[in-house]
């Protein structure tokens, strides 16, 4: 197995996802538009007046919410990322790929690269829409680069969880049930929609152990406060994500090996 071969496999597999996407333009449009329309515009406008600016520590609810929506998008895409491999498992396509002389990880890496490329684009769309609604990024373009980096790093662990579930469940019905069960609590029990200080005590405790919270708390100051406040938070987030990713990759690899051999 040379690096040249590995690159060729990953490229061929990633191209497959890109080609599929180009055949599903309608679905692509909705994938891109859904988070900003539903969460940022609807939710942001809905809670604009209900939200207490003092508690938020932000110029308005939309600018507070933008960071949360960015991270939610990473969460949803990452967790759903494994489902296509589950379909491949169900219809035999995965077995066909596994009977070829490829490194097992290239199937997973290609999926991660594809999902994160889409997610990166969505993040840019979300930040642009927020800009139209008057949200000015305090850290400018370098801030966007850091947000993307945090998102990609969070995506590693999430994709690993998703693949782990995909290779463990019996059917895609189970997958989607589990996904719904996992993603909404992770959003509500985090600082995505309200700051921790506005939560009841028990919720604060749960939100503190939710990696979502730490990721959002690093992204948010990059949008609304500036570098001084953001740097320590970003450093902390990188540390937590390194641990989170390591744990998820370990579990995901175990599930993968159990299913594929």
């Amino acid at each position, binding site marked *: 197995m040379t690096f040249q071969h590995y690159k*060729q*496999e990953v490229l*061929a597999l990633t191209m497959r996802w890109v080609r*599929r996407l180009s055949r599903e333009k309608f679905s692509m449009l909705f994938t891109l538009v859904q988070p900003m329309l539903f969460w940022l515009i609807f939710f942001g406008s809905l809670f604009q007046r209900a939200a207490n600016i003092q508690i938020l520590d932000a110029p308005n609810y939309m600018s507070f919410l933008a960071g949360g929506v960015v991270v939610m998008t990473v969460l949803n895409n990452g967790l759903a990322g494994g489902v296509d491999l589950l379909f491949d498992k169900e219809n*035999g396509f995965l077995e066909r*790929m596994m*009977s*070829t002389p490829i490194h097992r990880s290239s199937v997973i890496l290609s999926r991660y690269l594809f999902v994160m490329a889409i997610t990166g684009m969505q993040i840019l769309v979300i930040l642009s829409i927020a800009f139209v609604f008057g949200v000015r990024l305090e850290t400018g373009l370098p801030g966007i680069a850091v947000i993307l980096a945090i998102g990609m790093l969070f995506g590693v662990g999430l994709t690993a969880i998703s693949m782990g579930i995909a290779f463990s469940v019996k059917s895609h019905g189970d997958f989607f049930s589990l996904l719904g069960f996992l993603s909404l609590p992770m959003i509500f029990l985090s600082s995505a929609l309200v700051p921790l200080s506005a939560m009841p005590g028990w919720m604060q405790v749960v939100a503190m152990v939710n990696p979502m919270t730490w990721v959002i708390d690093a992204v948010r100051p990059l949008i609304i406060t500036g570098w001084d406040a953001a740097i320590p938070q970003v450093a902390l987030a990188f540390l937590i994500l390194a641990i989170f990713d390591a744990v998820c990759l370990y579990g995901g690899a175990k599930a993968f090996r159990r299913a594929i*051999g």
Partner: protein
Amino acid sequence: MMDPAVVIDVARLRKTFGPVTAIEDLSFTVHAGEIFGLLGPNGAGKSTTLRILITVLPPSAGTATVLGHDVVTEADTVRSLIGYVPQERAVDRFLTGREHLELLGGLYHLSRTETQARIAELLKLVDLEEHADRVAKTYSGGMKRKLDIACGLLPNPKIVFLDEPTLGLDVQSRLRIWDYIRRLREQGITIVMTTNYLEEADQLCDRLAIIDGGTIRVIGSPLELKTGLGGDSLALTIKDHETEKLPRLRDGVMALPLVRDVRINPTGLDVLVESPEKSLPAVIEVAQRLDCSLDGIEYHRPRLDDVFVAHTGHGLRGGTPDAAEE
């Protein structure tokens, strides 16, 4: 007779899934250039065996080598030497036929020019040239199967594994697939296939193993298996007043090249033959030469169904009518 080259060697293979034993103590060899069939009902362990050989399923015990390479410790080498055509229509509905083959070209690490050359060759072989650039969801079942086969052949393999190659296909598509498989053998490719169609095993396989309940019941060529049950036979009835001519007739018939055994019965002869079609004219000629008047001739040919029942104690499908088995 010289031993033909062994390309697959399976020894005491066993696979369990939790408490369920899928295959038990399986041993067989496959020879270079032959079509080897694994015949058995659904759940007999055929697909499990195949999946171990293509390295996607590790065995619980026993060993298997493909072209001299162990399927567990040298899985990567095995993978680069074989082609696989899965049982399911394992196609991506959103990719075109050509894109499937290009993807596999990347997975087998072929160069761009190699891939394009192989694709042109294979599309021609399976008659998919016209449809190569349509997405697979517009393909018929037969076309998907052809694409499956083209995918399995892309790496130019020495051995091709086919899992139920004609399952659920109409008669015409089935005959065409058989034709492709025979053409592959002509090119010197070894073929290992599973099937639960007796007719398919009979028509296509050089040798086959009948698997039932996770174990091999019998291995041999379809002809060997059938003759093992007595083979094809002719029953000659001679006119009443000429029975005294029977010993002479027996000796005459026995001298024919395709005749294996002859026995006298009260009304005539029972003749065991290799091929009733070919031996029948010769037998009639002998009778005429010896001036015996025949009252009638019947022939009986044991079918693979009989072999299956004899070795497993039950029919392949428990009496379910199946159009393909007519």
